């Protein structure tokens, strides 16, 4: 078994009166896609923000490539090779698509911004993700939700990271774009990066990940290898009960609409 590229031990985080994370352990190995699932407010995004240096943890240690590190801010995380797509996207609304894509990693020529190269490269990146963006010279504020998300994902491809953290990358994406992002994740894995994906879509999670961590109410609730878990087991681990509302809906709908079932799989 290869060494973890990222490894967390005993991470804890408190916000005011809420203990958001308690004693979290988490490992990512190179060439592996790790899914992080859990109910709303389980603490997934908080964990991602701790890894990417947005928050400092209250407790616990972080190791990158086996060396213990302190991540003092997003710059430090980037220097360690951690690229992140945040759930709230973190784009500058007043800048255009090109400026956002290359923010902090601008291409220059003789000291001045090389707009042409950046624009041409933007179109390439966006086309890779099947983005339907009419112009890259309009401010991000005027893009649709999915377009913004595509830009945020494309951002993470601009540098050369070791670990990519994707916090609900496909939430606002259309069917084609989702499929492209799943393809992208597989490409990243194949090129030896560690990938962490957060998603509420069990089909997507099961389609791309190698290992799944489940968080519940800020604690490690379960860890599964992809081979030996079913959707039911996952949902039960997330909600903390096997007789949950999802199971109830499924029971009802399979009664009613059994024939269509097999065609819907993996299309979100």
């Amino acid at each position, binding site marked *: 078994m290869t060494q973890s590229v990222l490894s967390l031990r005993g991470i804890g985080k408190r916000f005011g009166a809420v203990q958001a994370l308690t004693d979290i352990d988490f490992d990512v190995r190179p060439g592996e896609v790790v899914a992080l699932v859990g109910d709303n407010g389980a603490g997934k995004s908080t964990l991602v923000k701790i890894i990417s240096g947005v928050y400092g943890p209250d407790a616990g240690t972080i190791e990158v490539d086996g060396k213990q590190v302190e991540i003092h801010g*997003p710059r430090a995380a980037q220097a360690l090779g951690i690229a992140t797509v945040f759930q709230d996207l*973190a784009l*500058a609304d007043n800048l255009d698509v090109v400026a956002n894509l290359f923010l902090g990693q*601008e291409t220059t020529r003789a000291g001045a911004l090389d707009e*042409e190269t950046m*624009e041409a490269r933007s179109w390439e990146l966006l086309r890779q993700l099947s983005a*339907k*963006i009419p*112009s890259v010279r309009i401010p991000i504020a005027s893009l649709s939700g999915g377009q913004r998300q595509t830009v945020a994902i494309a951002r993470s491809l601009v540098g050369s990271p070791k670990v990519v953290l994707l916090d609900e990358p496909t939430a606002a994406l259309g069917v084609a774009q989702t499929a492209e992002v799943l393809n992208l994740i597989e490409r990243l894995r194949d090129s030896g990066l560690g990938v962490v994906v957060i998603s509420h879509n069990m089909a997507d999670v099961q389609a791309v990940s190698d290992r799944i961590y489940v968080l519940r109410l800020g604690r490690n609730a379960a860890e599964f290898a992809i081979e030996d878990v079913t959707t039911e087991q996952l949902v039960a681990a997330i909600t903390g009960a096997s007789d949950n509302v999802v199971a109830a809906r499924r029971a009802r709908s399979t009664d009613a609409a059994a024939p269509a079932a097999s065609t819907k799989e993996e299309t979100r």
Partner: protein
Amino acid sequence: MSFADRTDERLIDDNSPRALWGNLVRRLRSGDLGMIPVVVGLIVIWIVFYAMNSRFLSSRNLVQLSLDSATIGMISVGIVLVLLLGEIDLSVGSVSGLSGAVLAVLLVYLGWPLPAAILAALCTGLVIGMLYGVLCTRFGVPSFVITLAGLLAFLGLQLLTLGKNGTVNLPGESALIAFANFTFLPPWASYALAVAIGAVYFLARLRTIRRRAAANLSAPSVRSAVIRAVVLIAAVALVAWYLNLDRGIGAMPLLWVGVIIGMDFLLRRTTWGRHVYAVGGNAEAARRAGINVNRVYISVFALCSTFAALGGVLAAARLQSVSQTSGGTDTNLMAIAAAVIGGTSLFGGRGSVYSALFGMLVLQSITSGLNLIGVDAFVRYMVTGGVLVLAVTIDSLSRQARKSSGSG
């Protein structure tokens, strides 16, 4: 339609000459006009004052206007930078006064050579700005409060520097005074300047067109670049010609406009400028993108105070003396107001240094016009207020149109 940026079928292709006109009309109606409304406001003000006193548009008065605008206008350039970050600097007046005082004392009482004294004055500003930046980023004190404190503290320091004799007259034959009052471009140089500006513009544009074509991106036609360059040359030459009827283009206004063009380049075409807009638009996003937000803050505050100091030096040169009142009264308000009137947002991330230019011209035109007409103090105040609202309403109405058409 083989360009990478022209593949979306919803894009309305507007490269035909006929569409260009339709496009302009649409932009007019939707209010997507950049600086045009302020310029229109300015023109309206000029016409009104011209109607009341035809001397208002005389070459002489316009030369005067350019000289009067440059000092506080220089300070306003720094204010635009700070506003772009979503911060404010209330102390530019005091800083300009202090740097003027430093200049005067070093020059007159301590007998320093002029360049050294100017450098020391500018450094005063630089250090103050860095101090603000550090306080703002390390302790998180809101800039409104630090710079308010600075306003008071540096006024105190200004009084201390000037000492008990107060007003200091600068040596009359000083090169600085000559620069601010008597140095004008000779006519041939002003026309050469017009051509040079046009040529630089044309070459830059041509290079962009070439590079865009090479990158398979849509590019404007070379013809349009030629037309624009010619129009630009003609406009600058016209202004030069008219001002040459009197003394011509002053060195100080030229420096001011040069600084504005330079800062505009830095803001729009360098990494640093990009980061300033990013931090002003969404500081958290900028931080997460790995931008060193603290450095951006410190550099912007340092620049702002340095421009304030430069403004103070120019004001001292223009007035040929420095006193306790230097940088006082309305300096702060005028400098900030010019930036805001020119269209820079107080909330960060939106605006351009050209707002310092046009905003200052609006303010100074009102003052100058009222000076020419000669009215009672109370009328002066009321008219200034009224004209200000009118000038900005033109701008705001067009912005509103843009908003309701959904493009803002």
